[in-house]
């Protein structure tokens, strides 16, 4: 295997593992809330039956609704996990950049400890024909860079817009003085996608410019 495909394949596996760890973290939180709430419900009923506390149907209803809400939250987590898992199904296809970004931000919140991510997405984003898995991977690296380089307010703005026939993803609120993107693998991913990653130290932003159609197939074998 040539050096670049080998790096892309190894990075892809590592990326898949990182995202799975983040998803399992989200699901553990959902299960922890369901576990505590259901156990609390059970104990409240037991205490009421023993005459140790007054019946409080409204509180029981609030707790049972909380369980339903967490089941819905869990379904959303699994929906995003499913969308991510299927990003590898067809190597190159048309995607909505806003939808891709929406899923990636939800899956990446886990990595943003200490930072606030403010997402500003159009209902329908620019459509590009690309390799969705590599694009997800590039977004992940760029977002991690933005998280590390966040300014004193620790708030990162994320926007998606059309541009030059393709699309652009902008991460703002950075306080970096680095003018080049400090990740070799991100550079390899950007090259494979025909995308550009640009740091603007003047406005404190980093952006990914995605072409309407990636230039060619990526050979991994």
């Amino acid at each position, binding site marked *: 295997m040539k050096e670049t495909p080998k790096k892309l394949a190894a990075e892809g596996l590592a990326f898949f593992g990182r995202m799975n760890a983040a998803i399992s*973290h989200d699901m*553990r939180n959902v299960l922890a*809330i369901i*576990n505590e709430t259901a156990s609390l419900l059970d*104990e409240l009923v037991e*205490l009421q039956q023993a005459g140790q506390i007054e019946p409080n149907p409204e509180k029981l209803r609030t707790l049972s609704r909380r369980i339903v809400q967490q089941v819905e939250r869990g379904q959303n987590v699994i929906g995003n996990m499913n969308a991510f898992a299927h990003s590898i199904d067809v190597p190159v296809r048309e995607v909505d950049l806003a939808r891709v970004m929406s899923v990636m931000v939800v899956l990446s919140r*886990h990595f943003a400890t*200490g930072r606030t991510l403010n997402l500003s997405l159009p209902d329908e984003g620019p459509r590009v024909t690309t390799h969705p898995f590599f694009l997800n991977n590039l977004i992940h690296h760029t977002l991690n860079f933005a998280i590390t380089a966040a300014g004193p307010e620790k708030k990162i703005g994320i926007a998606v817009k059309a541009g030059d026939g393709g699309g652009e993803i902008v991460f703002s609120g950075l306080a970096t003085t680095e003018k080049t993107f400090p990740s070799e693998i991100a550079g390899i991913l950007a090259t494979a996608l025909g995308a550009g990653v640009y740091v603007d130290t003047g406005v404190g932003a980093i952006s990914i410019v995605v072409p309407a159609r990636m230039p060619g197939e990526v050979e991994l074998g």
Partner: protein
Amino acid sequence: MKVLLVDDEKEFVSALAERLSFRSVDADWAVSGEAALKMAEETHYDLAVLDVKMPGLGGIELRKQLHGMHPHMKFIFLTGHGSQEDFKVGSEEAAFYLAKPLKIEDLIHKIKETLNL
């Protein structure tokens, strides 16, 4: 015994505090590290149970700041991650490290063990 629970999942931490109260554990709760620091300025806590991953101030940094304010305070970490790295940090920085979802009996056992009760 006074315990401070800190986790950004309000539904989790509030239910846990109420369940602990049924077992005679006096527990306050906060949903951010910043709120926890304010509470610790006004109240003496024997032990804090901290979520490792939180927006804003995370559990590891929060532990350092709480320890600076109250050198005798003990700590237990909670995490939904379960990675080897979390385990390593949790073991080094706190008395115990517990993974979510919790068994409340395990938490109470660890609280008593940490406070030598």
